[in-house]
């Protein structure tokens, strides 16, 4: 609930939240992968 409030996703419609969350997960996955490769 805090995550949704702080990122203002609370005000978005479900499909917009899905877009935002999938983007965020993609970026996070890429970051983890790149860190792994880099390390």
């Amino acid at each position, binding site marked *: 609930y805090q995550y*949704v*409030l*702080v*990122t*203002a996703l*609370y*005000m978005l419609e479900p499909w917009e939240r899905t877009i935002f969350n999938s983007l965020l997960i993609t970026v996070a996955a890429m970051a983890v992968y790149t860190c792994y490769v880099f390390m």
Partner: protein
Amino acid sequence: NHHASCTLLYKKPFVESFEETPLLVAVLTYIGYGILTIFGYLRDFLRDWKFEKCHLAREREEQKDFVPLYQDFENFYTRNLYMRIRDNWNRPICSIPGAKMDLVERVTPDYNWTFEHTGNVLKDVINMGSYNYLGFAENTGTCADAASECTVKYGVGVSSTRQEIGNLDKHEELEKLVARFLGVESSMAFGMGFATNSMNIPALTGKGCLILSDELNHASLVLGARLSGSTIRVFKHNNMQSLEKLLRDAIVHGQPRTHRPWKKILVLVEGIYSMEGSIVRLPEVIALKKKYKAYLYLDEAHSIGALGPRGRGVVDYFGLDPSDVDIMMGTFTKSFGAAGGYIGGKKELIDYLCLHSHSAVHATSMSPPITQQIITSMKCIMGEDGTTLGEFRILSENTTYFRRRLHEMGFIIYGNNDSPVVPLMLYMPAKIGAFGREMLKRNIGTVVVGFPATPIIESRARFCVSAAHTREMLDKALNAISEVGDLLQLKYSRKNR
């Protein structure tokens, strides 16, 4: 920052606090607005390419070549931010806006673009949003009876102006009573609070005059100052150093280019700032106006009836002499359960306004039942109705209690300890909508305010305490606020509790 002034000018401590926004909260607020803006652009793109139905008013295809009727970008916030949480505003009520009220329940099938009434009524919602400082918003009691008698006798509307046949004995009676209530020589009543400012300031100043206005003044003062054609300079909110600097510059340098002295210098301040919850530093303002020979226009829209041991407003609160204020303005909306406004001052000033004020010449005069409502409620406050009801309508006790409890809970509260307007800081845009909704679930009606009506990182909920609130109601509201505060993590204050 915590202002506590105990100089000689003040007879009691003047304590005002505006705790700074925590830096992390400020950064997260910007990020939240950034995300909403990006999705706003995405939605606009989908609407432009017809992927999504546009609910807003737009020109038809045939009108595309004409000058655009709707400034597209100017409604960006309305379309993409306000719409998403607008169920918190303009809620229809079906009772008097008293200490408790009944709300019409409504639902939306399309994320607030349209609403439907379910037919249900939310009963006995505790009203923490309305301006009802002394609890005169009632449909029973002496005020209501007197107003209904007056309706039968005079009718509802007066279809003429004060300068023609719209000048009733009721108006004369009201103006004499207001003059006595304020402790000034004479007064004049107007049918609309906003117009009292915007139509009379142009009658008082004009070209070659200077208006020094507080930066957070109400829109009616801003409009009146602009309509007058005077030169306007803005000083920081309630900041006497900033005001004195502007006064000094005005006296020393005079008018721009010609350096002629200003014909008049008018200082515009409000008694209580209804968005900040702050009280004007009137003793210092009066000291400055005397020192620099300026005129003082005091807008007591919120403070009349709500401040002072006798309810005479901010002059009474500081124990000052009403004749030190050149123009006393106020409204009957917030403390008298009525509508309209008044201007009080010297007899020659009022006579001049009777001849030159736009409202006196063009506007239809105040409706008689409303006049009667004001007369009855004002007599009740003055104790001239033969009862002690007016004395029992104590607001300051509720205010002090309500503010103290919120401070103890750890919320950031703005403003003066004695101000009945209590802004509770929310900061993030999503928490504005969430707070209003969660409080309504707990049967409390609140007002929430966000950007652009407030600075972008100072969104807030604004509580208006009333003398009609009982201690049980306040405790119920405070418990609900504390519960929602924990749920939404709103207890940001770093001050000792």
